[in-house]
């Protein structure tokens, strides 16, 4: 066994000269299964003895050069344990130093997160910018924001919806005040839109379904407003929510829009805001939140109660879903001939991990 072990340890270190004896290595591999425990001990011994010899090996050696998967795995595990040990030692040292210094210790470093490292977007809206304020003041939503119209939403789906989508639509209709659900009888949207305008609807919401699950949302602001197309994911209906409260009441909820900072984000934020009536009924204590993080918009619907001045309790009611904007088209729904204000081009825009559009 001793004679065969000599080629074993240099094999592990990747020396190709010793590989000229395949028979002996195969014998030793068969022996591995039987006496693996013993071999490991001997390997460890060999490792310790040859640590001095290892330093003579070229420093560009890496674990990935070992062809044997089991040995490579073992080496890698050891490598990781070493690293973890070193990291823990470093941490302990730093903590001791910090305690030793006491007040004079330098402030804790802020960890880097993707939100921290976000590339500055030049279209970020400055609140004092007059031109943008004028643009927003006279855009398609101005009628709503000046109090001239009240939202009236028509919710429908793609043709022949399945149970989940139907229930999702019904729950959405309870969340959004003045919303009506209609069955889509295979009608073309371009024909539905003039009829909606005639009946004073302000929004058309079409939930697209694929394989019995809602996966897309087309939100069209009606007189001649922009049309946004979103990808919907992670839909949780009321039944699936944990610790949920009773069903939402008819009161208009408050709306929270988080983190829509760029010009495109502002347009989308206004699109969501115009879905709900302008005056929320605080009696109802309900709030709908659209939270934008890393270009994903998370929708949540809660009921809150103030226990005292500083403590609030919240109960999640209603459906929750995430949206990702795929395109924003100027004008009502016309996917073929409409002009797009923004289109998601994945290969160009998603190339940088720290750059976001909304």
């Amino acid at each position, binding site marked *: 066994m001793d004679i065969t072990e000599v080629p074993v340890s240099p094999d592990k270190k990747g020396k190709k000269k010793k590989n000229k004896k395949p028979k002996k290595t195969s014998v030793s591999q068969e022996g591995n299964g039987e006496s693996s425990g013993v071999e490991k001990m001997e390997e460890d011994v060999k490792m310790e003895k040859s640590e001095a010899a290892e330093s003579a090996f070229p420093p560009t050696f890496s674990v990935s050069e070992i062809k044997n998967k089991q040995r490579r795995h073992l080496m890698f595990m050891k490598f990781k344990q070493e690293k973890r040990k070193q990291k823990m030692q470093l941490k302990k040292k730093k903590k001791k130093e910090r305690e030793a210094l006491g007040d004079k210790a330098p402030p804790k470093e802020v960890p880097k997160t993707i939100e921290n490292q976000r590339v500055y977007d*030049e*279209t970020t809206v400055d609140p004092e*910018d007059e*031109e*943008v304020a*004028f*643009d927003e003041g*006279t855009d398609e939503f101005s009628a709503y924001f000046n109090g001239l119209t009240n939202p009236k939403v028509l919710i429908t789906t793609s043709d022949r919806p399945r149970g989940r989508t139907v229930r999702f639509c019904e729950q959405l209709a309870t969340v959004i005040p003045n919303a009506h659900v209609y069955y889509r009888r295979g009608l073309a949207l371009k024909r539905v839109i003039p009829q909606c305008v005639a009946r004073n609807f302000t929004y058309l919401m079409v939930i697209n379904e694929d394989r019995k699950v809602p996966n897309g949302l087309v939100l069209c602001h009606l007189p001649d407003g922009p049309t946004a197309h979103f990808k919907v994911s992670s839909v949780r209906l009321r039944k699936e929510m944990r610790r949920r409260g009773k069903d939402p009441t008819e009161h208009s909820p408050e709306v929270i829009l988080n983190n829509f900072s760029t*010009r495109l984000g502002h347009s989308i934020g206004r699109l969501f805001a115009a879905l709900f009536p302008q005056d929320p009924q605080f009696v109802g204590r309900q709030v709908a939140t659209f939270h934008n993080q890393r270009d994903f918009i998370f929708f949540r619907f809660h009921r809150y109660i103030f226990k005292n001045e500083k403590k609030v309790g919240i109960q999640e009611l209603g459906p929750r879903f995430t949206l990702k904007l795929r395109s924003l088209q*100027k004008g009502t729904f016309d996917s*073929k*001939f*409409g*002009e*797009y*204000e*923004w*289109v998601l*081009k994945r290969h*160009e*825009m998603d190339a940088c991990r720290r750059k976001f559009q909304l």
Partner: protein
Amino acid sequence: MGDTSRLCSVWLGSETGILKGVSLSRKQAFNFCNTSHLSRDQEVRTLCWGDPAESELLVGSVDGTVKTFSTEKGAFTETRRCGDPSEGCFTGLATLDGSALITCVECGTLRVWREDSSEPVTELDAGKNVCRMRQSPAHRHKVATGGKENGLKIWDLEKPEKPVFTSKNLRDDWLDLRRPQWVRDMAFIPDSDKVVTCTGYHQVHVFDPSSPQRRPVLEAEYGEYPLTALSLPAGGNTVVVGNTHGQIALLDLRKGLVRGCLKGLAGGVRGLQCHPSQPLVASCGLDRFLRIHSLEDRKLQHKVYLKSRLNCILLSSRDLEDVGGAKGKGGSQEVKEEEEGEEGEEDEVWDTMERLEEKPKRKNPEEEEEEEEEDGEEQKKKSKKKRKKGQD
């Protein structure tokens, strides 16, 4: 105000009614507004140069007024009422012999206005739903119009009764159904009679009025979305088109193949223009950015955020990155003199360099021969080397 307007080499009109000038050398954008308060009525629809010296800009707005902006003074000098807003927005603006103005609106009425009178001198009807009117750079009295279900028509303003050339629609398709036509933009190809048009059905057509064929001479397709803007680079044989999805492509007009795409735009292209002398193309669109790409390597050179949606673009003929301006002139002259001095010195250096380089040029073919023969026997190579050393 005058200083800033003299620096600008790119002019853009926006939906909020603001005329924007961009100076690329200074990387700054300036807003020029007519009135103190903005309004959507003033939305700029077309821009054109008022005179060949490019000292005046004509701005056509949605409410039917044409304003003159002087780049020297940096302010709007006069306003003219050239039509009703009920007729539609301006689809084309051009100047004729300095004082006359040609306007075309969406309902099809093409008018020629003189400076003094408020009534048009010539008026003709170019059909309904006109999308664009363009003037031929070679023959200033020839204009082309086209629109939705309104094919390309070339008019001669001296004979306004009938168009000089009316295009015919494409042949019926394989189901014998009539093909819809929607001309969005057109351009006159220099040094010939031909006209290139781009359509809302993602086609590019080339028409030749001098040939008896009234149908397009060349048909090319690009993408799946309506093409909204078109421009001809100075080189010839190529055309740059942009569509509603923000895709800009270079098409070759000899065969109709796509040469390459310019990337970066996220919104529909509203205005495209190629620089008359430099290989650059400027694009503006609904995503509120001005982008300048180089035509040779198709890379983005400049990107400027302008806060409103942009409708039209106009480039000045001078060098885009030229410093320009009165203040810059003295400095630039000094710089030029220095450059000339440096160039003179460099010329001398290069002359001497050339003389030296002639010898290595002679050696190169010899070295190549030697390398080829190295594959052969080594002895022969050694002997040849010895011989050549003797020659030197």
